[in-house]
């Protein structure tokens, strides 16, 4: 065999799931569960909790695949947004995130991702790029971004945790996100 088999597009899997095709759910799960489980475990630091959230995410996709809007971004980016919201909600007892996630009219659920990370190889490359971008940041900038993303801290909480003035926290996050933008394009 000289060429890798063509991957069934996520959009096709979603259509099949909406018709009740469990094999499509299985394929989607196999494709993205390692990515999600890694993130969930990092956020929750609890494998059992991460397993439960992971299952809930895919059950949500099974129930409401129609909510996925391909014009807003890729399926993996949508899963990451949904997964992070649920994990942070669980971590911090903030159910508001889950509510906002499915509220079309709220900015908290708004995102657009132009990155193509559906293919495993491109996803792996993107993961390396993001990790490299974070590793290149000064420690304080990386810490500020990671406290926000992985621990769900607000700017005020980051300021208290790090003993840093609020304005400095803002600048660190801004600078870090600008670096990320340059690398990701």
């Amino acid at each position, binding site marked *: 065999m000289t060429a890798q088999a063509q991957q069934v597009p996520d959009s096709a899997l979603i259509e099949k799931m909406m018709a009740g095709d*469990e094999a499509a*759910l*299985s394929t989607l*799960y*196999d494709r993205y*569960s*390692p*990515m999600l*489980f*890694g*993130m969930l*475990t*990092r956020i929750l630091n609890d494998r059992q909790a*991460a*397993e439960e959230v*992971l*299952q*809930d995410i*895919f*059950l*949500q996709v*099974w*129930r409401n695949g129609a909510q996925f809007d391909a014009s*807003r*971004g890729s399926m993996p*980016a949508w899963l*990451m947004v949904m*997964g*992070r919201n649920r994990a942070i909600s669980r971590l911090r007892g903030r*159910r508001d995130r889950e509510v906002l996630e499915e509220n079309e009219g709220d*900015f908290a659920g*708004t*995102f*657009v*991702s*132009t990155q193509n*990370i559906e293919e495993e190889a491109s*996803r792996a490359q*993107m*993961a390396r790029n*993001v990790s490299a971008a*974070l590793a290149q940041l000064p420690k304080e900038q990386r810490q500020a*971004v*990671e406290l*926000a*993303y*992985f621990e*769900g*801290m*607000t*700017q*005020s909480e*980051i300021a208290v945790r790090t003993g840093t003035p609020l304005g400095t926290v*803002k600048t660190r*996050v*801004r600078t870090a*996100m600008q670096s*990320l*933008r340059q690398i*990701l394009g």
Partner: protein
Amino acid sequence: MTTPHANPEDMDLYALDALDGEEKQRLEEHLRACPACQRDLAAARGRAALLGLSAPPAAPPASVKSTLLQRARAERPASAPQAVVTKPQKIRWGLRFSFGFGLAAAALAFTTFELAKADLDRGKQINQLQARLSKDELAMQAMGQVTSAPDSAGITLLQQPGGPPGQAHVMYNARMGMAVYSGQLAPAPAGKSYQLWLVPASGAPVSAGLVDANQQSGAVVVHVAPGLVAKAFAVTVEPQGGMPQPTGPKVLVGAA
């Protein structure tokens, strides 16, 4: 005079859900009126989502997938009846489901074997029986999960004044988003269905699907969104096929 756009620092913080206080309120007010900033925010959120990729991928245990597929298979829309499992009466929750399922499974397995031996032309019937056995197995597994979980709670639903006589029991697990319902009511009026509702601590009731009048001789697994804190469960009379929100009289109610 043009309206100044959002502070880029605040936009990045908001994309990470890290903006708080008055700054957050101000930004949201601005976003409501500024399509350009809405687009910037969406892009910033898309980039922020990729930060999760910096966590190394990890393979979840196989049990997560098998339970997921089992739950997906057992789910039905509110308008469809759920899988019913035969059970003996008046035994503790877990035991009576297990015993009932064991009998049903043994009977079905025996019948399947006999059919295969007697007549190969009856393969279609065999397939149907096997499908039913598989479905019942899944329903039984789901029941076992709910009834054996330490964080499940039992709720008794009692008849309401002026309503038909009846009673039901619900074993609910919010974490799993599953409930096991068993109960008995007078037959629903012609053209009507009984519908089970989860009444959350806040917000509108959530449909848990249709239930048969006589669910006493079987139990049904119903699914709702995980994490819902239940204030009560109720059964109402609805037009056949059910409704998105309750419209008919409550015939059974139980506080959680």
